């Protein structure tokens, strides 16, 4: 690759392929060329308009949640170099001379081609309203657009998005994330008019409004209002009203970028798009192909999704290689996570088929809407899912066939009448599992049976399934396991490559044989080839946690950083703090029950001020201080310990918080002292290492202000005592806790929690919360109740004594650490320069505090003088 493009002669020997546009589809085309060996036999030239090589536009919005342009990149220096591709970044094609078969780039470079491939994508459509180009008006398509929006939003307080489609909602969510009050203006009577129907739109509207976004449907934008300086101040709407806003983001659809093609006389469609045949060859010129969003496919459609573009890229590459391939149209099924809401539509979502019937389940309170379109003969034709798209993968795969269970059972929520879970094993072989990459079930099975893949990552590599939007990965996992089991391979349930036992089995071994070092366990019970080795990052912390949970009983040190144990802990436990994205740490002192004295608050405030830490009240009723350098941790903790604070174990798979409501003492409804109980529980179980983190809460009455039913163990006061709930979870897959026992006295409550927690610690898998554990173990809640309430296994005494040993041996990890110079030795930035702060850890101001300064983000803004530098990024920085 040369840094400065120069006019080059096409050599006789190697025919030249020139690709115009290095977007998502362009990149896939290059990969397809490489896979077919065409990069070896051809000279490949790529003209890339944007200042950076191809990146993941689908995931564009994740830039605002911290993904750097680098992380969004879809290619790297090595791929480009290995395949000898000449990539000219920041140098678009400006004209094509089809007669001479030459492309001219903006830099003046001229490239002769044998085959020209246009993958120029789309441009955002901006309705022709007055002042549409004013300062403060933006579009939402490229990383540069996002950087500009981010910059402008710093001075803005209100933002409006024109267009309530998929991208409009993403843009509005992004504005909200930037701290703006956000409005969405949509001309159609509902949100996402293309993907969902009125019912789905209503469910979506409700959820989106609950997030604090204001939606205006059924109104058009007539004019952007500007001040004397020409900057946006508002918008005039078609209903006569005016909306005050500091910025406007147009997201009113896209149009194919076909100007280059028009200028050189290629045929384009009436509504735009370069007309191509089933091989993606332009109808006007056999030497020219068009793929992706700029192409008008043979079925008369321009596809605005990435999956059909990928298929076109494969088709064009195959055709160039003289292989058979065609693109005759694609499914428009989509599953999206918009502002955290699942929205999916597939097949004939709007019921256009004659005589079709709908099955609808709708709960607008919960923001749920599910519709299936069924043919007269029971064939599943399509559907729409809003709020819960769990069943999308399976439903889409069944589209076009009669599902083996009644359709309504597929949309009803679990627990409501007859809901059925359809395993992917029931799917036919030609069912498409990964629609982004068009991979069928048969191909995935073959990857397991013929190409001997045994894990999801291997199958992903082999078939490309699951490598784009990721929504199919879950089904992929189920298929791989089912296939392995079916082919008689015993599915390895072992913890990892080092141990063939499950976590539960290892726990039993450690407890029964009193094994108190990892090495001993590995050398005696590890897989043959793992014995004597160094273990891995999966089993080390898992075994470290088992040893820590059982420390007093098996005779191990209760301090997790002593001796060999130090090497086992996850990185966060190793520094007794949570690692942040720039390499600094957060500090979370324990604040039992969320109760804190004014002095305590002042101490935390003073410490944070003295060390320049960002402070935030957490969702766990305590205070987090962010941005501590590793060498500052001991200094900070000396002051905290002095003031009586202890480690909050925010870094550990251990008890986090026991939240409380004010309860009987202050609240007019309270029936028990919930604060006292929360503090008692937090102090009892603090420091308890477990398979995953543990959370709890205590509410003073059934109004449940502490949200106890979303906790691993939650307690709600009754006039007769306490109700104990278990297995609750917030997070990605929320679960309401189940009632384990009612009207318990203080002592009964504590005894039951002791047993419950120790039984969980003993039998759960690594990183399995109580919620998933409860769902997985045979017999579920009833079994757990039998064991911990009825003592059906006769182990309750042991469970209680294990907990008693933990409680008796608890010591604050931070106090232990700062009192030992040897233990403090690890808290240095550099072993050879302990007092020099890590220069990579930087901060910039935000809202009167600091935030991490990630130098990486600026890489995206480098100029394109040396495109090689840009590509350098992913490998070396």
């Amino acid at each position, binding site marked *: 690759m040369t840094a400065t493009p120069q006019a080059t002669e096409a050599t006789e020997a190697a025919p030249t392929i020139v690709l115009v546009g290095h977007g998502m589809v362009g990149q896939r085309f290059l990969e397809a060329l490489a896979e077919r060996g065409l990069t070896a036999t051809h000279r490949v030239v790529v003209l890339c308009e944007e200042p950076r090589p191809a990146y993941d536009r689908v995931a564009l919005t994740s830039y605002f949640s911290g993904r750097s342009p680098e992380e969004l990149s879809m290619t790297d220096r090595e791929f480009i170099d290995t395949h000898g591709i000449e990539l000219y970044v920041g140098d678009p094609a400006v004209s094509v001379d089809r007669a001479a078969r030459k492309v001219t780039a903006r830099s003046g470079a001229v490239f002769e081609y044998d085959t020209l491939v246009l993958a120029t994508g789309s441009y955002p459509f901006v309705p022709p309203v007055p002042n549409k180009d004013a300062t403060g008006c933006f579009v939402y398509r490229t990383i540069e657009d996002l950087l500009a929006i981010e910059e402008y939003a710093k001075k803005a307080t209100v933002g409006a998005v024109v267009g309530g489609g998929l991208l409009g909602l993403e843009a509005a969510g992004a504005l909200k994330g930037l701290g703006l009050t956000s409005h969405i203006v949509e001309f159609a009577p509902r949100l996402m008019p293309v993907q969902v129907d009125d019912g789905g739109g209503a469910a979506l509207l409700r959820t989106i409004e609950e997030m604090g976004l204001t939606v205006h449907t059924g109104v058009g934008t007539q004019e952007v209002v500007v001040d004397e300086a020409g900057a946006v101040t508002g918008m005039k709407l078609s209903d006569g009203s005016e909306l005050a806003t500091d910025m406007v983001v147009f997201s009113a659809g896209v149009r194919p970028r076909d100007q280059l093609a028009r200028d050189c006389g290629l045929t384009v469609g009436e509504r735009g798009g370069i007309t191509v045949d089933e091989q993606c060859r332009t109808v006007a010129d056999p030497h020219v192909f068009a793929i992706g969003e700029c192409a008008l496919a043979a079925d008369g459609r321009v596809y605005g999704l990435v999956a059909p573009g990928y298929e076109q890229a494969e088709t064009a590459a195959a055709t160039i290689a003289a292989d058979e391939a065609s693109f005759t149209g694609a499914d428009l099924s989509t599953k999206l996570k918009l502002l955290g809401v699942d929205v999916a539509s597939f097949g004939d979502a709007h019921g256009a088929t004659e005589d079709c019937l709908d099955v609808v389940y709708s709960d607008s309170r919960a923001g749920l809407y599910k519709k299936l379109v069924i043919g007269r003969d029971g064939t599943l034709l399509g559907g729409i899912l809003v709020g819960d798209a769990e069943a999308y993968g399976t439903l889409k795969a069944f589209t076009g066939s009669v599902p083996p269970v009644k359709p309504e059972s597929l949309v009803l929520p679990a627990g409501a009448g007859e809901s059925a879970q359809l395993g992917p094993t029931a799917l036919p072989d030609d069912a498409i599992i990964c629609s982004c990459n068009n991979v069928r079930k048969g191909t995935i099975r073959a990857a397991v049976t013929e190409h001997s893949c045994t894990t999801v990552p291997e199958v992903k590599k082999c078939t490309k399934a699951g490598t784009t939007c990721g929504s199919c990965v879950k089904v992929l996992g189920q298929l791989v396991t089912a296939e392995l089991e079916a082919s008689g391979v015993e599915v390895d349930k072992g913890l990892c490559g080092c141990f063939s036992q499950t976590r539960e089995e290892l726990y039993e071994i450690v407890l029964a044989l009193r094994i108190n070092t990892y090495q001993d366990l590995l050398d005696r019970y590890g897989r043959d080839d793992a014995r004597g080795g160094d273990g891995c990052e999966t089993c080390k912390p898992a075994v470290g946690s088992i040893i820590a949970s059982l420390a007093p009983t098996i005779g191990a040190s209760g301090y997790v950083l002593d001796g060999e144990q*130090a*090497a086992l802990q996850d990185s966060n436990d190793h520094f007794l703090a949570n690692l942040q994205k720039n390499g600094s740490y957060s500090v979370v002192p324990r604040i039992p029950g969320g109760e804190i004295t004014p002095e305590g608050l002042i101490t935390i405030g003073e410490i944070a001020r003295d060390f320049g830490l960002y402070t935030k009240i957490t969702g766990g009723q305590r205070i987090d201080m962010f941005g501590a350098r590793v060498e500052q941790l001991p200094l900070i903790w000396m002051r905290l310990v002095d003031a009586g604070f202890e480690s909050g174990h925010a870094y550990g798979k251990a008890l986090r918080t026991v939240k409380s409501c004010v309860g009987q003492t202050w609240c007019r409804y309270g029936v028990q002292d919930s604060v006292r109980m929360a503090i008692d529980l937090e102090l009892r179980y603090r420091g308890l290492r477990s398979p995953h983190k543990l959370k709890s809460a205590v509410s003073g009455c059934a109004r449940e202000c502490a949200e106890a039913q979303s906790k691993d163990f939650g307690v709600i006061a009754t006039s007769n005592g306490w109700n104990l709930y278990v297995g609750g979870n917030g997070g990605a897959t929320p679960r309401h806790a189940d009632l384990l026992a009612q009207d318990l006295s203080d002592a009964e409550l504590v005894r039951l929690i002791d047993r419950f927690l120790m039984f969980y610690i003993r039998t759960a898998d690594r990183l399995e919360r109580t919620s998933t554990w409860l769902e997985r173990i045979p017999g579920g809640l009833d079994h757990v109740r039998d064991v911990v309430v009825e003592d059906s296994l006769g182990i309750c005494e042991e469970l209680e004594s294990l907990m008693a040993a933990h409680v008796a041996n608890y010591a604050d990890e931070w106090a232990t650490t700062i009192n030992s110079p040897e233990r403090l030795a690890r808290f240095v930035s550099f072993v050879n*320069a302990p007092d020099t702060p890590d220069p990579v850890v930087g901060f910039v101001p935000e809202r009167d505090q600091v935030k991490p300064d990630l130098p990486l983000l600026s890489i995206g803004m480098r100029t394109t003088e040396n495109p090689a530098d840009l590509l350098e990024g992913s*490998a070396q920085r």
Partner: protein
Amino acid sequence: MTLAPETTDLKIQLQLQDGWLEVCDLTQLVPGRGVAALLPDGRQAALFRDRGGNLYAIDNRDPFGGAAVLSRGLTGTHRGRPFVASPLLKQRFDLLSGQCLDDETVRVATYEVRAA
């Protein structure tokens, strides 16, 4: 590079362009854990020692997240080769070659390291 574990007062040295840089005492490296070292040109190296006493050094910067934290990752062996998993997003890096095991297109720099 294998050492008898009882060997003491040895120093860990890194090979740089202009010779060996002395970094720390061998005893400062806990088997299975890493430390970071600051190099004269401002770059950082992550040094590791495994259970067998072998030493490794790679660039300290996580190429995915950008923070200089690879020295704080968990180590292990994969198909007989030593690796460290980044504490940020857990990608694993071969300690001998610097190759990322989860993304074949990414590699970090490695350094010659010895105890002398």
